[in-house]
């Protein structure tokens, strides 16, 4: 299939993946195949319900948050939430990566050998879920960090896999530019990808029976099995609710009624991630917009008439076994990549083959429009960059030097705000806050492209902004004695725009392999000083020493401007001077203090 969307993936690779997936059926805990260029790891599916929904899980959809230490990238930076995944699938991964199996060691050998261009993780059904999580594990373990030698790119190919993670999971993959590694094949009616969109409580009873039917090693299903029809209906009903709610939220105008209604509903958190390739009789249709895929998952399973409706429930089981055939006939099928340009409301054979009605196309289009809007928002944000730069430049090149000549530094100058230029700096601070808050608002609402937060130049700009302007906010806070009625800056007063900038910076450093020490950061230096000064030395001695120790690192990193803080009239210097002689003599800052005084 010739498509830029699935770059580097050809029919042969997919066929190979399928064969490996099928071979994994009887193999614990993984199956490995190797060619010149590619190593394939495939995972067996399970048709026992406890491997679909963890029996211990009390949550309505068997979900659990990912562990941040283990998967530091799988979270939202803007909202500071970890991704949610299916607990049972995560457990399978934990077993796979535990020392009891050779998996980790074998992968390490492959990476270290560097002979292969690509590692493929693949699986059918719940084996696909394992493949997805194994890929995430690989990305976090080997691919995330910048490495001097090339690390093999992973690829995850699944066939009829259930959804694994939530919106944050999908968003995080997008931010790290990892979504491109995931390709999921879904036969039009296959019930498995829709299964976790239903509440556990409503599917629980019939699930063991249905899973037995889904197991390809068992005899084929009875066409008159009423429980299958019921099960199909139950799953699709909840899928309908999820899809409708999602699209109403996407295009609606924040109607109050929708909000009330949603508080009465239990909605599945799972969302599609990566590229989905839907197959119909003669065609393959690929989509990589998660919202659009969700709509297609619902609408493509609708029937056009009563007769079809009586057959579809069984088709939804049979389609789960159709991937062998799909792979074999792949060369014969036409391939369409769905985007806004070919999303006509009428006509278009690819859409008709998927059974998408006018209403369905509208919803898919709405989802894609939303992505377009996110891109538009980004260019609007980009357009503000010169303004931000101009203001930062004024602070850096005019305000700061001018304050230096006053011998107390810009922190103190701003705090006392005696001069006209201090007032102007305050205006600049507030204007910058306005712009940055606006961007942050878009980030938090998911109204910028997923990869926005991962962009290097924004991280750099946000860091520069944080280092330069946060001291002004701290000065403002203490100028108005907010610490008295609101509480310490670090606990109560720190604006989200700085917390967010810090998270982005730390995330970036983490990927560069740098661990950041301490919970606080250098731009909050003044907040620490304000918090400690005025308290008797004896009480805060330990904290003072800790601060002095961290300060050197902050200066080296560029977090704190050493040209400003040591100035003659600065709060910090005055405070330091009040320390007992003994402390000063052994202080790591002793030299810095005397050096700056000399200049």
């Amino acid at each position, binding site marked *: 299939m010739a498509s830029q969307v699935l770059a580097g993936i050809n029919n042969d690779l997919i066929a190979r993946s399928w064969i490996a997936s099928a071979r994994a059926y009887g193999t614990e805990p993984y199956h490995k195949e190797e060619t010149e260029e590619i190593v394939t790891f495939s995972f067996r599916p399970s048709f026992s319900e406890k491997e679909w929904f963890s029996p211990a899980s009390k949550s309505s959809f068997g979900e659990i948050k990912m562990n941040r230490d283990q998967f530091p990238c799988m979270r939202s930076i803007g909202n500071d939430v970890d991704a949610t995944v299916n607990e049972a699938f995560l457990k399978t991964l934990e077993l796979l990566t535990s020392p009891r199996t050779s998996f980790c060691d074998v992968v390490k050998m492959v990476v270290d050998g560097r002979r292969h261009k690509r590692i493929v993780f693949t699986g059918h059904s719940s084996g696909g879920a394992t493949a997805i999580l194994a890929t995430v594990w690989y990305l976090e373990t080997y691919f995330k960090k910048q490495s001097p030698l090339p690390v093999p790119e992973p690829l995850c190919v699944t066939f009829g896999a259930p959804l694994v993670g939530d919106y944050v999971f999908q968003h995080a993959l997008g931010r790290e530019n990892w979504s491109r590694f995931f390709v999921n094949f879904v036969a039009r009616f296959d019930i498995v990808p829709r299964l976790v969109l239903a509440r556990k409580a409503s599917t629980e009873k019939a699930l063991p029976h249905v899973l037995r039917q889904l197991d390809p090693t068992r005899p084929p299903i009875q066409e008159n099995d009423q429980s299958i029809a019921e099960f199909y*209906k139950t799953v*699709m*009903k909840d899928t*309908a*609710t999820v899809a*409708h709610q999602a699209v*109403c939220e996407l*295009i*609606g*105008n924040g*109607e*109050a*009624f929708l*909000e*009330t*209604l949603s*508080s*009465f*509903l239990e909605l599945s958190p799972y969302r599609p991630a990566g590229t989905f390739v839907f197959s119909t009789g003669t065609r393959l249709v690929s989509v990589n917009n998660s919202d659009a895929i969700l709509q297609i998952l*619902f609408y493509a399973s*609708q*029937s*056009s008439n009563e007769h079809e*409706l009586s057959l579809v429930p069984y088709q939804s089981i049979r389609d789960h076994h159709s991937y062998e055939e799909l792979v074999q006939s792949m060369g014969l099928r036409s391939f369409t990549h769905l985007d806004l340009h070919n999303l*006509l*409301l*009428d006509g278009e054979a690819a859409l008709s083959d998927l059974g*998408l*009605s*006018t*209403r369905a196309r*509208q*919803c898919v*289009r*709405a989802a894609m429009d939303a992505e377009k*809007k996110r891109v538009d*928002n980004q260019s*609007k944000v980009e357009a503000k960059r010169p303004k931000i730069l101009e203001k930062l430049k004024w602070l850096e090149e005019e305000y700061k030097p001018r304050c230096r000549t006053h011998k107390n530094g810009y922190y103190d100058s701003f705090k006392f705000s005696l001069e006209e230029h201090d*007032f102007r700096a305050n*205006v600049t601070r*507030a*204007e910058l*806050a*306005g*712009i940055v*808050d*606006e961007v942050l*608002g*878009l980030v*938090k609402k998911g*109204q910028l492209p997923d990869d926005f937060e991962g962009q290097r130049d924004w991280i750099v700009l946000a860091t520069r902004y944080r280092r330069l302007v946060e001291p002004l906010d701290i000065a403002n*806070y203490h100028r*108005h*004695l907010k610490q*008295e*009625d*609101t509480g310490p800056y670090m606990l109560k*007063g720190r*604006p*989200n725009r700085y917390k967010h900038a810090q998270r982005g910076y730390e995330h970036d450093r983490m990927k560069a392999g740098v661990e950041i020490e301490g919970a606080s950061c250098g731009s909050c230096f003044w907040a620490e000083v304000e918090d400690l000064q005025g308290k008797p030395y004896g009480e805060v001695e330990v904290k003072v020493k800790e601060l002095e120790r961290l300060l050197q690192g902050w200066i080296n990193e560029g977090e704190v401007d050493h040209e400003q803080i040591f100035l003659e009239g600065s709060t910090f210097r005055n405070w330091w001077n009040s320390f007992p002689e003994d402390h000063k003599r052994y202080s790591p800052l002793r030299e810095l203090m005397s050096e700056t005084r000399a200049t």
Partner: protein
Amino acid sequence: MGKPSSTKQATVVVAALAFGWLAIELAFKPFLEKFRSSIDKSDPTKDPDDADAEAVAAAIAAAAKSSDESIPKTLSLCEDYYSSSSRSRVMEECRYETSELQASLMMSTPLWSDSWTLCNAANCARSIQIQNIAGIIYVALPPVIKMTELGDLVALEVIQKGNFSGLSTSLSSDEPPPMVDAAILKGLESSLALFHSQITQRLQPEEKKRVVITGHSTGGAQAALIALWLLSQPSPPSFHLLCITFGSPLLGNQSLSSAISRSRLAHNFCHVVSIYDLAPRSNDDLFWPFGTYLFCSENGGVCLDNAASVRRMFQILNTTTGTPHIEEYRHYVFTLSDQFLKSRSFLGGNISDNSYKAGVELAVESLGFSTDHPSGVSMKECIETATRIRRAPVLRAAELPIQLANVLPSRLDIQWFKESCEASPNQLGYYDVSRQYSNQREIKVNMSRAKLARFWDSVLEMVEKNELPFDFHLGKKWVYASQFYQLLAEPLDIAYFYKYKFPLPETSGHYLENGNRPKRYVVIDKWWKQSGEPQKEKRARTRYASATQDPCFWAKLEEAKEWLNEMRSGSSSGSDAERRALLWRKIVGFEKYADTLVKRMDVSADVVATKSSYMVWVENLREFKNRVGNGIEMFVDEIDAMET
């Protein structure tokens, strides 16, 4: 004679004092620096909290489509900040249609079929049914009242002794009182008692507390009234509440409908109405709809959520005659709850490739009408209008942050004026300067004051008319921005009142009397109360607040000045002891109140400037006390005597 009013005065002072502290302390905690609303030297700096960032994002997103205009420079003075451009943008084309999608969403949920099932049980048993289905408590009311008993309206508060106090009244006084159907109201008391005893206990074990009140026909109207009663208690219910009615007749008059939407309660009501059912639209000249209406046919459904569009739909349906008359809701509920299984293709020939138009056409078809048919055409217009009405608030709200940023210079101007007065050697705060002098600076500040007042009046008017999103006034950004505006600007309004208006013969009474206080401040007070910030731990101030925490402090002082003057001038006569005792009590009340504020440093520096009118008053009082000497005790004795 003076006794009742003096007691009242004391209460007022105490209450004001209590509220004053609370409001103020809270007012300044969370920060006002939101979306550049605060280039403000004395702003406390706190987080632009999430709610705000979200609001801004929503605003940007909504505005993004049509406008390339970036947000105007904060400090560039923009004269017409509520320009007409915002109005034209409201009419911008809507890209997608949601009324049918909303209905499809509703019909795919368990709420839809479960509430009907219980309604049906109540209909059969002719008694109230309560059941817990998957963690949601359903309460269904039977239609015990006959349709023929309906039709008489009766005012709500007369009978219910203020039970519906949560319903907010109109700011304009010419609106008739909210009224409901007399027969339904009569049935309320009995169902309430039963309801209460049953619900509380059943809710106990549930983690998420959710109640659905439902009913068919007149049972639906009763359900709606109970729901309304619960929602309009002084403190809102501790559980989520949704009222779903099936074929319910209309409950009340137009005032009731507006009061419900003004009180932001309409979104708790969903009225399911078959297009063939006449009961929901009988009496629709006297009675008005409220809440979301889900009109359905056997083909599908459409949600409309503003009263005008619902009424229009009633009219359209009234003109269509005949066709199948299935009044059986069971049929619709079960047919439609399985509707999601089948795709519905467009029947009426060529479909527009414009998503919105196609959506509207589909919606019309879902009600069983053809877009070629005249009724279908009217229906199409009706749905289009509804979409516009629905969308308008969002677009308007998107404009507001920009307008707020535009009036920022005016606020900065007042702030700057205040600070320079405090720093000046004249030792006279901005209130007193404005009250006493008229010079160029003062005139400019007055213009800033007027500009801000115009802006806030326009915002409040939009809120009052429901032209803004339902939760607009609860958005933290607006609560804080309005509160901060009030604290800074109301003293100036008081100053101008006493300087220009008070001496005029046509002005009756003081600032705080006879509706002299601008309504915007009354409303802002209310928002603040509604926002329900929990009071946090209070730390003692070490410096005077940046704005006096009771915005009416100066108005109270003006009254106190008058009392003391009267006392001083008439002190020799001693004729009207009762009057004097009353005055004295008021003076002591104010002295105590002001003293507490000052001690807590809840006043700004202008109050305690050496020459401020407050300090002058304190000095006068001290002098007076000295002069009268033991006389004071006499007053106190008199007061005591009067009380016993």
